[in-house]
């Protein structure tokens, strides 16, 4: 549990810390409660509705429905202060908190990987000493060897005792393995273990946790086995493996020798996150002439400026440089050209089967690919019928009658429905192997726009 000092240290600035004290008054709150993984409550503010505020105890991450742009906001800090004071009773997780925990574990999948890449990229200097470089490279491979061997044994034990037993383990049980992988200079592996820990933590609130956990364990096991046989792998797959384990390429190398791709790029998603220590920006770029789909990623440590991507929700002409061994390719912007225009109609396949066919092609090269860009045209929004508990999820149905479940915040789902108005829409978003996360949409054939 957090001490008062630790809570105050989380505050983005002195004003927020002071404001938090004003929120740490039980009378301002209703529905306060906590369990092993989270604390939650509703705080009366200046708005008409109380703010719903929640924090994860594992890392102090929080979310609040208040409009503050400070993070964490004063309500989240006040909530943690109340917890530190012992003023929050134990309780059972309400649905709105469970939803948030579930969404978080999906998001952290991306965040963990990107943070690992950034940290590794930062640690790279470019010594002009080829012998020393070779020696360091060999030493690192040995370290990763050791880490992978330990991870194989741990996975073996995990498989024997079963997921149900593992899910009951405390955070520290997972975390020590993750730390060991960081020592072994395999940040990518550490990210997988942390994700497993998040799925375990959110476990009791989402019914598909065993599916998602076993999917990750399968990928992790395959990664360990592939590392052992890395010399026998096709070059592209070996490159993908190294990138995912945590071997990074510096931006200077990519600028110098990365494959170039010039096109008119439609920016069909933009995600900005900032946890106070690391800010990140991710975009999916769809090439108009080449049909290529690439991702742009940028990171900035606290206080630094994020290198901007291409203008979100527009089409712009640019030359990209691609990172080797990334599928779909990660790119950096080598050259921006002036021409920028509206998004226009969205690209996309005629049905889900066609759109998802690219998944198999991607997995053939990089079997660890998990979040993939997917676009499809002419789908129908089927909102969940509140009265019908057998279809609690929103679906997007294509013209062939097949439908995928939609995972998105409630306001994004309603925006989809508003664009559709009962008619067909075109959508672009992400597929994580289980659900579709819409990010851009248009009335069928109409002008596309970002919705997330």
């Amino acid at each position: 549990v957090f001490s008062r000092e630790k809570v105050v240290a989380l505050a983005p600035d002195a004003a927020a810390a002071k404001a938090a004290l004003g929120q740490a008054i039980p009378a301002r709150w209703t529905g306060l409660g906590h369990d092993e993984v989270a604390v939650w409550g509703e705080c009366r503010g200046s708005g008409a509705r109380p703010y719903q505020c929640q924090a994860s105890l594992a890392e102090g991450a929080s979310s609040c429905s208040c409009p503050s742009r400070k993070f964490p906001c004063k309500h989240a800090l006040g909530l943690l202060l109340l917890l530190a004071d012992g003023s929050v009773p134990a309780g059972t997780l309400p649905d709105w908190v469970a939803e948030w925990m579930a969404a978080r574990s999906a998001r952290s999948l991306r965040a963990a990987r990107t943070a690992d890449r950034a940290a590794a990229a930062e640690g790279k200097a470019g010594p002009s000493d080829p012998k020393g470089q070779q020696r360091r490279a060999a030493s690192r491979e040995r370290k990763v060897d050791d880490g992978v061997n330990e991870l194989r044994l741990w996975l073996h034990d995990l498989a024997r005792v079963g997921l149900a037993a593992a899910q009951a383990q405390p955070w520290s049980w997972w975390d020590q393995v993750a730390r060991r992988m960081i020592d072994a200079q395999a940040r990518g592996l550490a990210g997988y273990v942390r994700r497993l820990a998040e799925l375990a933590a959110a476990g009791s609130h989402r019914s598909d946790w065993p599916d998602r956990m076993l999917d990750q364990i399968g990928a992790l096991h395959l990664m360990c086995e592939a590392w052992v046989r890395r010399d026998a792998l096709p070059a592209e797959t070996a490159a993908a493996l190294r990138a995912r384990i945590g071997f990074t390429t510096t931006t200077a190398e990519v600028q110098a020798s990365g494959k170039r791709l010039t096109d008119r790029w439609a920016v069909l998603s933009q995600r900005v996150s900032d946890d106070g220590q690391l800010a990140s920006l991710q975009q999916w770029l769809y090439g108009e002439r080449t049909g290529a789909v690439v991702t742009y990623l940028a990171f900035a440590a606290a206080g630094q400026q994020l290198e901007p991507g291409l203008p979100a929700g527009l089409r712009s002409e640019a030359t990209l440089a691609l990172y080797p061994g990334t599928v779909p390719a990660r790119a950096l912007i080598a050259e921006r050209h002036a021409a920028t225009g509206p998004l226009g109609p969205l690209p996309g396949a005629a049905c889900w089967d066609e759109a998802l066919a690219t998944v198999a092609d991607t997995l053939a090269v990089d079997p660890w690919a998990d979040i993939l860009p997917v676009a499809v045209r002419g789908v129908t929004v089927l909102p969940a019928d509140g009265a019908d508990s057998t279809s609690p999820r929103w679906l997007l149905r294509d013209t062939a009658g097949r439908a995928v479940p939609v995972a998105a915040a409630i306001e994004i789902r309603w925006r989809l429905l508003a664009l559709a108005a009962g008619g067909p829409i075109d959508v672009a978003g992400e597929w994580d192997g289980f659900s579709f996360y819409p990010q851009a949409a248009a009335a069928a054939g109409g002008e596309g726009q970002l919705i997330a």
Partner: protein
Amino acid sequence: MTTWSAVVDAAVVGAGRGGLPETAAVLAPLTTRGPDAGARLLDTAAAVSRARRAGYRPASAGDLAAPEPAEPDGRPPVSPPAARRLGQLLAGERGELVMEWLRLLAGTGRRPPDVLVPDLLSAGAYHADLRPALGLVLGPLAAWLASANAEWDWATSVGREPRPPAWSAWKVASHRDRREMLSRLRHIDPAAGRDLVESTWSGDSARDRAAFVAALAAGLSLADERLLELARSDRSGEVRLAAAGLLARLPGSALSRRATARAAAVVEVSHAITGRRLAASPPSEATPEMIADGIDPSPPRGTGRRAWLLRQVVAAAPVAWWPSHTGLSPPELIRLAGRSDWSTALERGWTDAAVRDRDAAWIGALLERPDGADRAVFQALRPADRDRWLREHPDSPLLGAVDLVPAPWSPGLSAAARRWIAGLAVTDPRQAPEARRLMRAAAIRLEPPAGPELDLTEVHPRLLDGWDEMLETLSIRAAMRRELAEEPTS
């Protein structure tokens, strides 16, 4: 059961305790290599999880019913920059700018961006004061969405003929709904509104009764006197006070007839060769009849009894009665009263009555007295009268109360406010709270949205943050106007 879910089930209990499901022949070489059950489970998980991803097929959902389409909206959409602006305003919780954006949109004949209609409906659900502006611009799409979401219930009939209020709900509706219902009805049919109040009067709470009496101010006539007289003997002091206030404003009511008779008896205007004189002869005691009509016999500490009674007797008469009774205008009456022995009591009485009756001529005359610039008296003016009064008195210190004038400010008032604020911004920071308050109001109400002409270097450093914020909001408002004027096809 699929192979995948069988493998998941096996993994949940663990390889130490259960068998492994058979996998398809094509996967067998990958899943049977391991030396023991744990290794074989991991191999199987790796192969089957990748196979599940590669071979995923969406489920068939052809039998699920899709929603009926919404009615089409014939209005063209706004330009993309205007749509982006609304998104930013909604995300930034700039409620007052959203309101202005909606009002500006209503004049263009265009529709709000479809994708933001759910966000507008949510904004209206939380902020009821946005609903009238939303009602001007939302169309069939909003009604269609609202019919599928109970939180947006208020919008199910937007864009169609307004539903007549369900008067039958009078007995069961909430306090707020009943108050709204009554004030709407009083504007259309005052008698029907009165009937509604009388139908439940004996069973309503004191809070309800006080609110309903106050709502009778709209469409007030002598026909309401019987009900108001009943309310004047109510057990609740709040109800009595509200009723007495309305009866006093009702020329011809028994109460106001008695009040004007008393006023006529205590104030006399005489016409002598030396000019007109106003003489007051206050009562020395409050009679039982006066007390029954609401006059308080005991003066507050520091006020003489006769002055106190005079003030109340003067205040009890409708303030508009004085000019017609004496043939003198409010400024003339105030001037003559100033020469009498009872000037303070007379002015206070008229002030009480002018504020109660919201009489623009009287309030204006009272504000124009030396030292008459009183914020509370100014606030009694109707909003449009406040704008006009300040426009006509651009040097009055009451410019400091310009934040009491609601948006939008007339161009004349805006010009006066710009000068006033520029004056405050360069002076000493003891006036900073007033300067900040006025800058916040000016930011969202100046019309056209342009700032005072003042060089940034002249603004007092302690006011710079407020100054910058005002200029930024003004520039957003100017941009909103440009964007909404753009053609949607740009």
